[in-house]
């Protein structure tokens, strides 16, 4: 166990020494974190602290844009370009589910080559998204950049050889001097107001320097991972080659472009295998108590990466529902309902997405009453966690060979038991493990791509039809539902991963997955509640996606009211 007191004492003096930290704020009471930073979107978390730990939590989505309302009356084939803009981080996923739901309504099956391109684009999305989440959104919850200034670069190089023996060597002196110059300059930029030093940060100075160096390496790597999208998608974020019926990138399916993609994939895969996964192990070894916190027992995965038109049978990541950490059961879409009792919408009745009724009605933030723009999705009345841990658990318990190998290997290296995967740490590790699995599978998909193969299935719009499109976004199970009326969008509905995870209490007042995962989290200093943020960010919140409105009555005059 590193001695954090010693670290604080032997800190070399930066030119402007920080004043001593104020004593920690302890005692019972409410703590509000608003804004939650290093996430996508606008999230507020409130907790009740009792006896040094979280006794209850409330999660609030703080932005409403009304995209479903905007979609009504427009051409169904245009919808994907709108829904894609729900999120520029998971920038591909809402385009994908939208074209899938229109194709389902029109009875279209896309050509094999188009399906492969879509799998590659979705795979690239996962790889990019997970790397950026781990290093740029989540890492500063575990690593202390200031402590890295005290590290011995030579010892750090030794550590790097042990942690990631197959990664390219890094000049740790250069990284350290860069950080020193930056901090000594006094313009702290994105590091201003950080919680360091803090008793909950347990890495040694060398471990901090190693991970700080990987933070910088990952910033460079993600540029390349993003380029994968641009090869077959024209650009990233917001790639632009999907189309109802297939994909448009016919002139990019050349051996030169495939090689370009392969080279970027190999580089990304190498980073995942030699840096990202070992870093997840390092965190698990340094923070073993976090393998016992932030747990849930119920999970949902829609599944992803169809290998043939047969869905869900051919999905590379399987579909399923888990209750109480048990074996996966088959999905029944009619068991989903969305609750609004604690959300800023009219009414209190829970409804299935296809028969919902929603009118926004902001009544002020009141944790006893209504406190979020997010609805509360439930499955047979129960909150379900979605995302990497859900996917990995459904796959593991379905005996998915690659996932099983990855999870077992991780647990062995980290010295954890299988049950400890159900935790904040397990959720963060699951993201790294599935990245490695997906990167491996993508190599095979790329090999299956045929130059000159058909990329689009022709279609004609129906006057009326209904359809749905399910997939897995990096943050979890995502579904779009469409009603086509007179050849236009009559109704458009989306049930979104971060709504499952970050939704408020339901009609039965049951907390959502994040709200319940936070209960029991110890908080050393209420003024600097990094422990709460660790669990919140382990879910990788995407709040712009999560807030939405469903209004299924096409003839209804839409009103937005605030009281």
């Amino acid at each position, binding site marked *: 166990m590193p001695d954090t007191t010693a670290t604080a004492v032997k800190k070399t003096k930066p030119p402007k020494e920080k004043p001593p930290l104020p004593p920690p704020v302890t005692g019972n009471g409410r703590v509000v974190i*608003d*804004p*939650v*930073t*290093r996430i*996508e979107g606008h999230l507020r978390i409130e907790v009740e602290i009792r006896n040094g730990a979280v006794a209850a939590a409330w999660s609030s989505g*703080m*932005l*409403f*844009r*009304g995209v479903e309302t*905007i979609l009504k009356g427009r*051409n169904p*084939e*245009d919808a994907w370009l709108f829904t894609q*803009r729900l*999120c*520029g981080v998971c*920038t591909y996923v809402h385009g994908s589910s939208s074209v899938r739901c229109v194709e389902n309504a029109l009875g279209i099956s896309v050509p094999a080559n188009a399906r492969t391109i879509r799998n590659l684009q979705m795979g690239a999305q996962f790889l990019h998204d997970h790397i*950026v989440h781990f290093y*740029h959104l989540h890492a*500063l919850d575990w690593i202390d950049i200031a402590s890295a200034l005290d590290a011995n670069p030579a010892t750090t190089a030794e550590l790097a050889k042990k942690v990631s023996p197959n990664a390219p060597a890094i000049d740790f002196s*250069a*990284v350290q001097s*860069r950080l020193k110059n930056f901090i000594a300059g006094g*313009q702290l*930029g*994105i*590091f201003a*107001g*950080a919680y*360091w030093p803090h008793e909950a940060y347990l890495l040694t100075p060398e471990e901090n320097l190693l991970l700080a160096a990987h933070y910088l390496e990952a*910033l*460079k790597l*993600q*540029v390349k991972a*993003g*380029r994968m999208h*641009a090869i077959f*998608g*024209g*650009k*990233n*974020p*917001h790639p632009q*080659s999907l189309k109802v019926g297939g994909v448009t*990138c*016919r*002139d*990019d399916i050349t051996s030169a472009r495939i090689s370009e993609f392969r080279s970027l994939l190999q580089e990304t895969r190498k980073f995942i295998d030699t840096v990202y996964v070992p870093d997840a192990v390092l965190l698990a070894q340094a923070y073993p108590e976090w393998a016992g916190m932030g747990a849930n027992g119920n999970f949902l995965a829609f599944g992803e990466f169809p290998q043939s038109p047969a869905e869900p049978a051919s999905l590379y990541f399987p579909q399923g529902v888990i209750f109480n950490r048990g074996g996966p059961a088959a999905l029944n879409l009619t068991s989903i309902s969305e609750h609004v009792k604690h959300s800023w919408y009219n009414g209190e009745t829970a409804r299935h997405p296809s028969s919902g009724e929603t009118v*926004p009605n*902001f009544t002020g933030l009141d944790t006893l009453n209504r406190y979020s*723009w997010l609805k509360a999705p439930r499955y047979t009345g129960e909150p379900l966690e979605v995302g990497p841990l859900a996917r990995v658990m459904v796959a593991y318990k379905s005996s998915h060979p690659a996932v099983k190998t990855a999870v077992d290997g991780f647990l062995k290296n980290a010295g954890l038991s299988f049950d400890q995967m159900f935790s904040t740490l397990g959720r963060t590790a699951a993201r790294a493990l599935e990245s490695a699995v997906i990167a491996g599978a993508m190599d095979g998909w790329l090999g299956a791509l045929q130059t000159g193969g058909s990329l689009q299935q022709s279609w004609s719009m129906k006057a009326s039809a209904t359809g749905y499109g399910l997939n897995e976004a990096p943050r979890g199970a995502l579904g779009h539902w469409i009603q086509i009326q007179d050849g236009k969008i009559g109704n458009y509905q989306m049930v979104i991963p971060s709504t499952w995870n970050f939704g408020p209490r339901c009609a039965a007042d049951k907390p959502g997955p994040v709200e319940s995962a936070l209960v029991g989290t110890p908080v050393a200093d209420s003024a600097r*509640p990094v422990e709460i943020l660790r669990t919140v960010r382990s879910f990788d919140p995407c709040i*712009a996606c999560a807030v939405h*409105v469903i209004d299924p009555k096409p003839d209804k005059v*839409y009103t*937005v*009211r*605030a009281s």
Partner: protein
Amino acid sequence: MDQHPKPNYLPEEHGITRRSFLKFCGVVAGALGLEPVFGPKIFEAFAAGSRPSVLWLHFAECTGCTEAVLRTSSPGFADLIFDTISLDYHETLMAAAGSTMDGILTATAESHRGQFFCVVEGAIPTADGGVYGMIGGRTMLSIAQQICPKAKAIIALGNCASYGGLPAAWPNPTGAMGVEGALGQGLSVPVVNLPGCPPNPVNFVGTLATYLLSGKLPELDDDGRPKFAYAKEVHGHCPYRQDKSRCLFEAGCKGKKTHNNCPSVKFNDATSFPMQAGHPCIGCSEPDFWDTMTPFYLKS
């Protein structure tokens, strides 16, 4: 080849090679319509003096504009925020959280009054007093009203911040508006609109480079966009305009009605742009394009 003086805070050990930085400055010079000889001048401009403070506000948005800027390379984003600008407020990247954030924002806007660049990402919801978007208990509208007028200049990054973008599409349920729309005539701070969904990060860096080179903001068109990037229609830049087998005008391409430099600068280190991927331009750098350019797949 190193005839230009080496800036004192860009040592090689930073991990950036001068060559790659110079190369990027050459790309920026190209976007600005400058001769390649200006590349080294841009390099020197970026490497001299203290880093200008940037306060980056996130409103009704999808974070795609931040993601776009994260994709700059040679120099990468780290070089941008360590060596070029001082990114003093950015909700997606900062270590801090909660009320500390508001403290940093308010204090920096005050201590750097008239000196900082304010980057705005996302539209500003104005209906019903702005209740549809709140941060730290305050409406986005009130935050914009407090911070933006104190800036030296505002960069409205992306179509949402420029003109309202997606949330402002009909029927605009939240009264979403761009910066100039929401803050009105009384705003005395210059606003540079960099529309696009997302905007090209080269044009963002080009705007900063123009300022660092000349002390002035770039010249703007009638829609508030820098002429160096938006003077010409996309179609005029498009390599396929003479090629009937590849021109997408009949498939709905809006390149003739849209002003931007996508086909010349391209995206993601010049990897591609939408028409190269076989997809029509959707007009994303024009005001109200979600209403004026749809249906996207019909010729108009």
